C-alpha cells in the first residue's frame, strides 16, 4: 500500500512539470504580454513601457523565465509575483479559492442530498411517470447553460423582490456591506456566516442543477444493477420487508462508486463554479482566472494551474484509496 502511494507521488513530478511547461508555452505563444494594454495609451511613453518589461523580467528569454518560476515553486514554495496586482500570487488567489470552495462545497452537498434519493426512487419505480418526470428535469438542468440560467435567476431575484416589496433574495455578490445596521466587519461571525449562506442560495441552485443529472443516472444504474443481484432476490424470497431490502442491503452497495468519486471533488473545488461566479458577482476562481487571462498575468494563471494540477493528482490518489477501502475486492499490493 505505502509502496503504491509513494509511486503515485513520484508520478506527480513529471506530470506537474509537463503540465506547467505546456501552460507556460501556450501563454507565451499568444501575442502580447501583461504590458501590451498600456501601449495604446497616448500618455504613456515608450521608455516607461520598456522599464516595466525589465522590472517584470518579461524581456528575458522564455526558458529562463520558466526556470526561474519553477525553481521558486519547487525550492521556496513561491508562486511568483502577480504582474497585474504587483504582489505575491498566493495573496491574489487565496481568497478566490476559498470563496469558490464555499460555492462548490454547498452545491456538491446539495447534489448528493437530492440526487441519491431521486436515483433510488427512479430505480425502484422504473419507467413510472415520476421516474420520467424527474429524469426529464435532471437533463433539463444539465442542458441549460449555467451562465444563462444564472442570468435568469438574477432577473428572477429582482422579480421576487419587486413582488414581495422587500429584499428576499440578493442580486448577486457574496456578502452585504451592512449587517443589521452595522458595517460587516463589526458584525458577529454568525451573522456574517448566515449572510454568505443567504447569498449562496441562487448560485448553489444553478451549479447543483447542472451536476445533478449525471449523478442521478449513475445512482439509478447502480441501484438497478444491485436490485437484480442474487442476494437481493434471496432477501426478498425470505420475506424481508421491501424497505429493508432497498435501504439496508441494496443502497449500501450501490453508493460504493459514489463514495469513491468523492476524491474527484478536490480538483472540482479548485476549478470553481465557472461562469456562474462571473454572472452572480461571486468573487471566486473563475472571475480571478478570466481577469488574469485578459491581463496576461502569467504567474497568476500559472499559480492557479499549479494548484489545480496538484489537487487533481492528490484527488485521484484519494479516490483510489477510498475505493480500496470501501470495496474489499480491490487490493493495491
Amino acid at each position, binding site marked *: 500500500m505505502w509502496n503504491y502511494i509513494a509511486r503515485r507521488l513520484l508520478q506527480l513530478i513529471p506530470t506537474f512539470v509537463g503540465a506547467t511547461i505546456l501552460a507556460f508555452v501556450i501563454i507565451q505563444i499568444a501575442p502580447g504580454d501583461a504590458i*501590451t494594454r498600456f501601449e495604446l495609451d497616448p500618455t504613456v511613453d515608450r521608455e516607461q513601457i520598456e522599464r516595466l518589461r525589465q522590472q517584470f523580467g518579461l524581456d528575458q528569454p522564455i526558458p529562463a523565465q520558466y526556470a526561474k518560476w519553477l525553481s521558486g515553486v519547487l525550492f521556496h514554495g513561491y508562486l511568483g509575483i502577480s504582474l497585474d496586482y504587483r504582489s505575491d500570487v498566493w495573496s491574489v488567489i487565496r481568497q478566490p479559492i476559498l470563496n469558490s470552495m464555499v460555492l462548490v462545497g454547498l452545491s456538491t452537498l446539495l447534489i448528493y442530498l437530492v440526487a441519491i434519493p431521486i436515483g433510488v426512487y427512479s430505480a425502484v419505480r422504473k419507467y413510472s411517470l415520476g421516474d420520467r418526470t424527474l429524469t426529464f428535469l435532471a437533463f433539463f438542468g444539465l442542458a441549460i447553460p449555467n451562465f444563462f440560467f444564472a442570468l435568469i435567476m438574477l432577473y428572477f431575484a*429582482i422579480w421576487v423582490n419587486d413582488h414581495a416589496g422587500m429584499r428576499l433574495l440578493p442580486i448577486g455578490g457574496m456578502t452585504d456591506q451592512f449587517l443589521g445596521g452595522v*458595517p460587516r466587519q463589526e458584525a458577529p461571525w454568525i451573522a456574517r456566516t448566515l449572510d454568505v449562506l443567504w447569498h449562496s442560495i441562487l448560485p448553489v441552485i444553478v451549479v447543483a442543477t447542472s451536476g445533478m443529472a449525471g449523478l442521478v443516472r449513475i445512482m439509478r444504474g447502480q441501484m438497478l444493477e444491485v436490485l437484480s443481484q442474487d442476494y437481493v432476490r434471496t432477501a426478498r424470497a425470505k420475506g424481508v420487508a421491501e424497505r429493508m431490502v432497498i435501504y439496508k442491503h441494496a443502497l449500501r452497495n450501490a453508493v460504493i462508486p459514489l463514495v469513491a468519486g468523492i476524491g474527484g471533488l478536490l480538483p472540482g473545488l479548485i476549478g470553481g463554479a465557472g461562469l456562474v461566479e462571473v454572472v452572480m458577482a461571486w468573487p471566486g476562481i473563475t472571475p480571478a482566472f478570466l481577469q488574469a487571462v485578459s491581463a496576461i498575468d502569467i504567474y497568476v494563471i500559472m499559480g492557479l494551474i499549479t494548484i489545480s494540477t496538484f489537487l487533481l493528482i492528490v484527488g485521484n490518489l484519494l479516490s483510489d484509496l477510498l475505493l480500496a477501502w470501501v470495496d474489499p475486492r480491490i487490493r493495491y499490493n
Partner: protein
Amino acid sequence: MRRILVLSMLALAGLALAQPKVFKGVEAGKAGGNYRVTAISDPRTFNPFVARETSSTDVIGLFLPYLTGYNPYDLKPEGYLAQSWEVRNNGLTVIFKLRQGAKWSDGQPIDADDVIFSATAHADPKVNSNSRSSFILDGQPIKWSKVDQYTVRADFPKPYAPSLIQGWYIAPEHIFGEAYKAGKIAELWTLDTPVNRIISGGPFMLESYSKGERVVLRRNPNYWGVDDKNSPVAYLERYTFTTVSDLNASLAKFLAGESDLYAAANADQVAQILERIRSGGLKGEIFPNADVTTGTNFIVFNWNHKDANKAKLFRQVKFRRAMAHLMDKKSMIEVALGGLGQPQWSPISIPVKQFFTDDVAKYDYSPQKAAALLAELGFRKKNAQGFLVDAAGKVLEFNLVTNQGNNIREKIAQIFAEDARKIGIKVNYRPIDFNELVRQLTQPAADGTRDFDAILIGLTGGIEPAFSRNVWQLNGSLHAWNLGVGGQAPKQIESFEVLIDKLMTQGATTLDPAKRREIYVQFQKVVAENVPLIYTVAPAYNPARNARIGGLFPKGQINSIVGQYPYIETVFAKE
C-alpha cells in the same frame, strides 16, 4: 487658568490659519448616507506610485490630494491642495501656495515636504510612476523646490500650458520617505496592507476592502474642504465600490436600486432602464444622449507597408478622402450605436468645448465622390468579379482588422467594408485579438515596415490635447499611420505632418487660452483636411441615476468629461 487661555488662543490661531477649500455644490446638501457604485474590476493597488489603471486611481483619487485640477463648471484650472499660484518668468516658473492647516488623517500636516517628496518619487525612473510624464518636458526635467513650509516652486525648461492641470497624487512623506530611500516604495500600500494603515489627505479614507467584492471608504474627518456655508464636506458618510465583473449583472444591480449611478452603454440598456422607471420599479432618471463620450474610433492606414505599392496608395490624400466619403456615419450610429451617438470629424473629442471645433473639412457619405477620387488615382475599370483595377489590372484590395469582442467597432468595420465593396473595393474584414492588433500597429520591423493594411481602433480621449502628443508628434510612439523606429521620426514624412508636429508643440507651450484655442482649431483643420486618421462615430453618454442621490448636475449641465456631479464632496444622499 493661564494655561487654558494659551491653549484656547492656540486653537483660535489654528482656526485662523486653516484655509479650507470651498466646494460649490449644485444644491444644498446634508451630511450622512452611503453612495454606491459598481466597478468592473477590483483596484490593483492603493499605492499611488504603482497605480496604472482607473480601477485603482478611481479609489486613490478619493483619499489622496493633488495640487490643482479642473473647475468642473468651466473646465479652467482650479486649486485643490494649492490655495493659489503665481505664474512668473513668462510661464517658466509657477509658485504654488499650499493650504495651511491641511492635515493627513493621522493628524500630520500636509505641507511642502510632502509635495516635493511626491514630485521627486513620481519623477524617478526607478519608481516608474504612471505620472512620470508630468515631470519631463521634451526630455528635460521640471524642477520642483521648496520655498517654505507652505510654498513650492516649479521651474519648467520651457512654458508648459497643462502644467496647472496635471493631477498627480501627493503621498505622505512620513510614510513613504524611508521606503523610497530603501528602494522599496512599491511594497507599501498594496491590497494586503491593513486599510487602517493607509492614511488619507482627501475627502474619504479607506474603511474596508474585500477582494473581488467591494472597497468601502468613509469620510475623512480631517479633510480640508467645506461647502459654501462653511460646513465640512464630504457630505457622504460612505462611498462604496462594488465589484461586478459582468456588465449584465452591474445593470441588474442598478435596476434593483442597489447602485446609485450608472452610464448606459447602449440603446438596449437605455430601454431597460426607461422601462424600469416607467413601471415604477426604480425611482430615478436617465438622460439618453445627454452628451457623447470622449473615446474615438477611427481607421488608420499603414504608410510603412512592406508592399511599396500599398504604402504609396495609402499615402495619397485622395485615397484617404475617398475612404472618408465611404463612411456612412448615419447607418453606423443607427446600427452600431442604436441611434445614440454623433459623427466625429476631428481629433479633439466633441465634449472638450474649449478646444473642439465643428468648422473642419467634412466628407459626406457619397460612394460617387469616393469612386471619382479613386478614378483620379487610376482605378477606372472593374474586372470580371466587379472589383476596381488599376491600369496594370491590379485589384484595389486591402485587409481591415479591428479588435475582437468590441461590438461597436466590429459593426462599424462591417458597415464600412460593405459600402466599400459596393463601389468595387475588395475589403477583407476580420476581427483579431487585441494584443495582436497592438503588435501590428506599434512594432515595426527593423527596416521600418509594418505588415497591416488598415486597422479600426480607438484611443481614449482626454480633455487636454497636449497629452496626446504621442499620437501627433513625428517621433511619437503612437504616430500610428506613419511610425518611426525606436522613437525616431519616420523616414518619409509629408509636409502636413510637420505642420501638425509644430502645432502640437505650440499648443503645449502657449499659455494664453484664446491663442491655444486658435492653435488647436488649426490643428483640427489640418488633420481633417489630410485625414491621417479617418474618424467614424462617437458613442453617446447616457447617464442614469437613482433618485436617492442629490447634488447632481441637472440635465443641461451634464457632460461626459466631468460626469454627473461637479465634486464628490457635495454629493449627498437624500434619505
